């Protein structure tokens, strides 16, 4: 019996789609579906998390995960550079901006996010386009244009001290620009860090050579005609471009480059035009389905349980569940929401944030370890024996243990500080040092060895001859050497001289 294959259409070709395709292919999807993918950007798919590499000078191919040939080689159809306008959910047809109509049985919306662009005075030209020198930081094209514009010695202002803004600031600074981060919040990364954490981070960032002005906003973008204070004379050669910004404290900063990194919001134009239920994002249930039959949504455009996510891990979890459901590999698979884990690690600064950053209940316990000189800050939010959140700045050694405890819901040790000090854990439970077996082959303990050394076995050879330790596999010989060095009675000095 041959059954007609269903048509699966994916709108959007970002990271959620990439993972969905991988997971679908791993479940033998092509036996059941023909797949078409619509991507607005030209070319294949790339890893948006790694965009800073392109900004830093890498070839776009360095972050391209799926070049167009990848789709063709697997029998998938990619429509790249094609914008989807709406889905006709009654006729089950996807309509593109250039008038193409594509029938589907199952449609998945993975339209992602778009940058929030604050309406700054002077930012746009008469046609409403961003002026030359003003950039958002979202797509490959954004990065390539910014890179082409920025030159060593230029002045750059980054508006927004969140994850993306700081990443862009670091790359530009590394490229030889003078960089200032303007951040409206009182402290940096205020979504992921409390104020103390944000202050610690600010110190780290400033020590990298980047200037930070927190609690400030931009009042106006200054362009050539405005002749703002401090504007370089060379700016005149680039008509229509920006020369600086004026802050809300009245100060003016010269700027050849303004990067808008003010966060993202779900991209909902297609969903809205298609009449899908929308709140902050496209509303989906635990199977990632919208209430419209045959239409699903995953990634940053989807709202599940009242939450939208602006990071990639939840999108991947959603993609895996949807692949299970659509292929029937595990029809009972359900998405139950994701725990938030944010990590920023570039040379010079190191941040981890997971779960809640502040206590919620009166009974929540907060544990903070601050090392002022090292610039390290570690904070746990604990509920009973459960970890509900952690933030780490500067010293992130405990991050991997903490995120696994949070993910698994394991109880914290009686003294939660043990988690922050890997290695110290359970030292009390360890067998006492004296009883510890050093030579496993012949079961020789530390105490026995020490006694032998004191009695004159002051070389490894002598020690082995007396105790048999080290004559089996030999894996304890290093330890024997250390014991000899530590416990051998010192030769009487006077005797040695005379």
């Amino acid at each position, binding site marked *: 019996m041959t059954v007609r294959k269903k048509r699966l259409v994916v709108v959007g070709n970002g990271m959620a789609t990439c993972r969905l395709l991988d997971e679908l292919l*791993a479940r033998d999807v092509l036996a059941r579906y023909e797949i078409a993918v619509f991507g607005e950007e030209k070319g294949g798919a790339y890893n948006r998390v790694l965009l800073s590499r392109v900004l830093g000078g890498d070839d776009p191919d360095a972050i*391209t995960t*799926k070049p167009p040939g990848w789709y063709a080689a697997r029998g998938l159809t990619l429509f790249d550079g094609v914008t989807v306008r709406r889905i006709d959910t009654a006729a089950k047809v996807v309509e593109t901006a250039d008038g193409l109509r594509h029938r589907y049985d199952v449609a998945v919306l993975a339209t992602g996010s778009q940058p929030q662009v604050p309406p700054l005075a002077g930012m746009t030209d008469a046609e409403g386009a961003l002026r030359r020198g003003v950039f958002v930081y979202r797509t490959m094209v954004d990065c390539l244009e910014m890179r082409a514009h920025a030159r060593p010695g230029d002045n750059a202002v980054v508006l927004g001290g969140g994850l993306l803004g700081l990443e862009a600031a670091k790359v530009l600074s590394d490229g030889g620009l003078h960089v200032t981060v303007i951040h409206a919040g009182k402290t940096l990364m205020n979504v992921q860090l409390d104020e103390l954490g944000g202050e610690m981070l600010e110190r780290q960032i400033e020590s990298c050579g980047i200037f930070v002005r927190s609690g400030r906003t931009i009042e106006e973008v200054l362009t050539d005609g405005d002749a703002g204070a401090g504007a370089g004379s060379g700016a005149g050669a680039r008509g229509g471009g920006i020369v600086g910004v004026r802050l809300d404290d009245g100060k003016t900063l010269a700027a050849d480059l303004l990067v808008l990194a003010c966060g993202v919001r779900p991209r909902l134009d297609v969903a809205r035009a298609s009449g899908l239920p929308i709140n902050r994002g496209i509303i989906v249930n635990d199977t990632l389905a919208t209430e419209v039959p045959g239409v699903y949504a995953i990634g940053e455009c989807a709202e599940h349980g009242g939450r939208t996510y602006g990071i990639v891990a939840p999108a991947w979890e959603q993609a895996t569940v949807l692949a299970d459901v659509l292929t029937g590999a595990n029809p009972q698979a359900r998405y139950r929401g994701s725990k938030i884990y944010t990590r920023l*690690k570039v040379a010079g600064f190191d941040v981890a944030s997971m779960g809640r950053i502040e206590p919620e209940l009166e009974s929540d316990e907060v544990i903070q370890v601050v090392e002022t000189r090292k610039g390290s800050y570690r904070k746990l939010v604990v509920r009973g024996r459960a970890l509900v959140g952690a933030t780490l700045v500067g010293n992130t050694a405990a991050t991997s243990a903490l995120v696994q405890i949070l993910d698994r819901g*394991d109880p914290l040790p009686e003294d939660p500080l043990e988690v922050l000090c890997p290695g110290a854990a359970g030292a009390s*439970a360890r067998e006492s040092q004296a009883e510890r077996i050093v030579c496993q082959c*012949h079961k020789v303990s530390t105490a026995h060895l020490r006694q032998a050394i004191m009695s004159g076995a002051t070389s490894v050879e002598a020690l082995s001859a007396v105790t048999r330790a080290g004559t089996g596999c030999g894996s304890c010989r290093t330890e024997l050497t250390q014991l000899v060095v530590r416990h051998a009675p010192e030769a009487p000095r006077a005797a040695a001289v005379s």
Partner: protein
Amino acid sequence: MSVTATATAQHLEREPPLEVKPDPDFPVNRGQMCIKGFTAGDLIDHPARLTTPLLRGRDGRLVPATWDAALDLVAERLIRIREAHGPAALAGFGSGGLTNEKAYLLGKFVRVALGSPNVDYNGRYCMSSAAAGQNRAFGIDRGLPFPVSDIGRTKVLVLWGANSAETMPPLMQWVHEQRAAGKLIVVDPRRTETARVAHHHLQLTPGSDLALANGLLHLAIDQRLVDLEYIARRTEGFEAVRRAVMEVHPAHVERLTGVSIDDQLRTVRQLATAPSGMLLSGRGPEQQSKGTDTVLAFTNLMLALGKVGLPASGYGCLTGQGNGQGGREHGQKADQLPGYRLIESPEDREAVARVWGIEAGALPGKGKSAYELLDALGPEGGIRALLVFGSNVAVASPDARNVRRKLARLELLVVADTFENETAADADAVFPITAWAEEEGTMTNLEGRVILRQRVRAAPPGVRSDVDVIRGLAERLGHGERFAFSSSESIFDELRRATAGARADYSGISYARIRREQGVFWPCPAPDHPGTPRLFEERFSFPDGKARMHVVRDRPAAELPDAEYPLYFTTGRYKEHYNSGAQTRRVAALAEARPEPRVQMHPWLAEALGAVSGGEALVESRRGAVTFTVEVTPDIRPDTLFAPFHWGGKSAANILTNPALDPQSRMPEFKVCAVRARIVRRAGDRAPGSAEAAGRIA
């Protein structure tokens, strides 16, 4: 019996006890020996040795019988079952402890004398993932592509899921030599004796090895540490791999594996920038349902770093059983013929059939892999008769209770071994077999070095070789002339012809050469060929000479902890014991050192469960439950329990393990499953009745 096939300089004396000493000049172990080696002599003269064939009597008890009576009965029943149900109803099960000659003969016997495709061996539980991975990456599978002495010379050594200090102690001298002048990194969920001596220990989550290996490659690319010139010249497939690992972000890897980004970075930097670097894997990453892909992630990494084939560098796998290497080369594997030939390749079938004097068409095809074979025992599965040589399948297999049930449903179970083991409990016939010191034969160690084990003692009266069992049965099945070998050497001579031109070519190796040259490395295609101590210096074993990189995506283990079974469970070994413990549990010195299996439990978990060292915990999986004595130790991760698998019966760790198989190698997932635990007795409690009341089942 040691995995390094220690050349023991025994003294041929009539008088017991047999003393076993290491040979100070042999280049593999250089005068070191494992505690199991020191005590190996105890087994030879052990009072529990089987010394007469046993047949199951009417009353259900095993009673002594003569060799002829036992062979007659087994042959007669094999014939009867074959007539009623066809040859595929018969099966053989071998061992990585058998000599090359025996492994060769067993494969030939099952396929020629029984006419069945169903032969496999316990090495499937051991080396199969590394073998499948190396074959796909390099076009050949040899545990180490270099002599063990190269380990001592590498600047950065990564031992990945390999606890050599306890499982292969003589190897440690090379590791100690290495770490004195270089960096040693151990990757293991436990802080093992090996991890203790490492400069860095990456204590990863069980089952996350593939994610970590892919993550290291991601970082290598990100940090521009890959060797693009080497990649272009010596490999195929990098571009696709590069794109695939691009999504394996370090922060994601940190979350999955528990290995911090700093540790990931340091590891890959050290490995990449050192003039020589080596990654050796053990069973940890291999005994998983993604074991083959994990090995491919290792080969991807080492190829991308440009290390494979360079001096004192590359990837290797530490072989587990005495003849783990040779055992997998000579046709006791369901999919292979002697010389690493493939049973589904027409040329390979033709070549072997010619040597065996049969039509290639008469050779059966591919049979069932080890666990699948055992799972198919009984009327439903279709295998009604099983001959087991040197393997304690009832203890060593995953989901051990299922295997015990299936063994009990056989019409005929034959066990050939030196001791009566747990598998023999259901046997219809048991043959008493010579021990290692009582017969001659070759083994191939982890380096691909073929060595000769000498006969130093006469076997006790009544005891014979596996070869005698096979020959005796072949005669009775009408194939005597094809098995009429007068000596081990005469079998080896036929093996040489069968492997001529094959991947594992032994045709140039002779007993005389092995004696003279302290072993010969295969491939060795001619008597005047020097053998091949190092592979891959010039080329890999594909026609174009290039290695292959493969896209391997991480996937979850077959069973992960959940609300019902919230902990990871993983298994491994004690230094004192070997495999199912059928032999080592009988050695007083070893049994005293480790009289029972203990479950390792982290202090945090112990505190949460109210456990203390010396108490008892009931550990349950979806397949069964075992009561273990608890050992509270910070050496294990807080989310993981560990217990060794050397014991049978109610203490068998493999009652808990998951028989999910790797799709390529058919390796069972011994190293990861989900369990829960509760305390049934605190240390010092006087009433053991509480344990019974808590349902101490097994």
